[in-house]
């Protein structure tokens, strides 16, 4: 049961093939079984989950079909990245500093999930403070990649991605500042959607890069991703950067085919040193799109290497300010509890904003940000979506991040430009390496093009669902 998708689970619950409690128990059992190897969770909320499941079953048994439409995720067990504030449940951002912090309020995303009837299984592991692309810099130990536990799951939403890949949950929620959904989704072979910045409320998400953070779903299928986005998206009066744009019924419009769809491919994204298998797989996937009727067009994009610099400066500057509230007075431990990576980023961010340096670092980075935004605008005049590899490498082995002072920022080169521009992007798995590690591809669209990004991804997914690699399962 824990291997089900949201769509299948919903059908099963509706048809009374199983109960919400049964489904939740199946997930909890899988978690118990695989956690010693995976370490995907920081906190497992077994009692609360079962309580929520019992309530879900009550509603399931006493509602009409119409009434059930008010609970689009009723009875679906979901894992939450541990940077989403959960009322009464400790929220740590995988940092020791917040080891004992219990929020008195729910993040808007959490409230929406609960209102939709979802079951919260627990809080998943991440790079501490979301500072990373490996989940190796968690203060609670690294999460392992379910496909090969000697490798990392990517990050910073590594726990969520691993949990979905390992079928510990039906779906998970992550957040992306630059790559933190798409990259671990790529390394773990699952769907990871980074919505347009401002599409989903950040209220209650422990802030990393305020102008970049985008909460989003990590799921087994594109349809599941659309189902969750429908619930999460929308303006929030508590987050002044959320868009008042109407929320589409994403899951109902996935069948738009890709005939005539103009897909842009930029050579600049096949960077030097890219894993050859990744490159080959992407090229194969592109051909697949072509066979479905899409038009592939070569485009020139602004060299993504500059995005590393822009992202490093802007993100670390915002981090240095966002982490200033952790002084140990109102909650948490004092600032000595920050580990190395956090200190590193705070220091650089402080430096970049400091007197005399603001113009050459922060301001300059924001100017190049404008260049990147305009570059994408120009590209999207020619093409509808852009396809590229999500990560230049496969899931790296445990220990890869040791002593690397800019590991995350460099690893995320291919996803940073679209994050900096606040665009929408999704990772879909397109195969495996010979070594058995997942390979992912990203589809990027303009701001608020989630529908197109999702339907394009969906078309690829359903047209490759019979490929052999689809039958593979992690062996834990």
């Amino acid at each position, binding site marked *: 049961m824990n291997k089900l998708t949201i769509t299948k689970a919903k059908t099963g619950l509706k048809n009374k093939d199983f109960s919400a409690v049964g489904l939740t128990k199946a997930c909890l059992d899988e978690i118990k079984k695989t956690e010693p190897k995976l370490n995907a969770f920081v906190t497992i909320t077994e009692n609360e989950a079962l309580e929520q499941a019992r309530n879900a079953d009550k509603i399931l048994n006493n509602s009409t079909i119409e009434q059930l439409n008010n609970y689009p995720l009723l009875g679906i067990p979901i894992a939450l990245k541990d940077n989403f504030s959960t009322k009464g449940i400790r929220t740590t951002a995988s940092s020791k500093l917040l080891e*004992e*912090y*219990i929020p*008195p*309020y729910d993040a808007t995303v959490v409230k929406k999930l609960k209102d939709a009837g979802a079951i919260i299984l627990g809080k998943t592991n991440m790079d501490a403070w979301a500072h990373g692309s490996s989940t190796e810099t968690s203060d609670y130990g690294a999460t392992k990649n379910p496909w090969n536990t000697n490798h990392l799951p990517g990050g910073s939403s590594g726990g969520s991605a691993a949990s979905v890949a390992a079928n510990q949950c039906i779906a998970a929620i992550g957040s992306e500042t630059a790559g933190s959904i798409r990259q671990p989704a790529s390394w773990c072979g699952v769907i990871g959607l980074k919505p347009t*910045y*401002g599409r989903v409320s950040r209220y209650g998400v422990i802030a990393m890069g305020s*102008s970049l953070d985008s909460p989003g779903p990590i799921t087994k299928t594109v349809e599941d991703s659309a189902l969750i986005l429908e619930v999460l998206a929308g303006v929030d*009066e508590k987050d*002044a*950067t959320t*868009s008042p744009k109407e929320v589409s019924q994403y899951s109902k419009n996935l069948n738009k085919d890709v005939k005539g769809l103009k897909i842009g491919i930029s050579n600049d994204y096949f960077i030097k040193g890219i894993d050859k298998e990744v490159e080959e797989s992407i090229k194969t996937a592109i051909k697949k799109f072509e066979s479905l009727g899409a038009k592939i067009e070569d485009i020139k994009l602004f060299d993504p*290497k*500059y995005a*590393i*610099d*822009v992202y*490093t*400066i802007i993100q670390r500057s915002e981090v*240095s300010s966002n982490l*200033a509230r952790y*002084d*140990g*007075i*109102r*909650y*948490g*431990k004092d*600032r*000595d509890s*920050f580990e190395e990576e956090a*200190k*590193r980023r*705070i*220091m*650089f961010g*402080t*430096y970049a904003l*400091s007197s005399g340096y603001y113009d*050459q*670092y922060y*301001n*300059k*980075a*924001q*100017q*190049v*940000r*404008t*260049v990147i*935004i305009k570059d994408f605008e120009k590209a999207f005049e020619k093409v509808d979506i852009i396809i590229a590899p999500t990560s230049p490498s496969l899931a790296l082995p445990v220990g890869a991040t040791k002593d690397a*002072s*800019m590991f995350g920022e460099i690893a995320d080169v291919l996803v940073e430009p679209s994050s*900096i*521009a*606040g665009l929408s992007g999704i990772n879909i798995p397109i195969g495996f390496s010979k070594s058995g590690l997942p390979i992912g591809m990203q589809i990027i669209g303009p*701001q608020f093009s989630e529908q197109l990004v999702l339907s394009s991804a969906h078309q690829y997914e359903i047209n490759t669902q019979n490929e052999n690699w689809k039958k593979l399962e992690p062996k834990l």
Partner: protein
Amino acid sequence: MKINISHIAKLANLSLLPEEKSKLEKQLEETIDYVKELNQVDTKDIEPTSQVTGLENITREDTAKPSLSQDEALANAKSKHNGFFKVNAIFKENE
């Protein structure tokens, strides 16, 4: 260009051990060096973007709503007293 690592640590409210300071100094220099390439990008007459949403004038009405209770507000504090958060004495500036 020498970075005053102690000064930055002070601004950042981080107390660093000497080993940390020298390690961070080196790493900071590495990062500064790395991002230097941004100067290759011509940004003459380019406006900086601090917000990608393009939103403006997002405000709220002046209505008071219930607050957290005193207990909720203090629940996570490691040191409190009579409804206040407590810290070691900060010497008042003009005493």
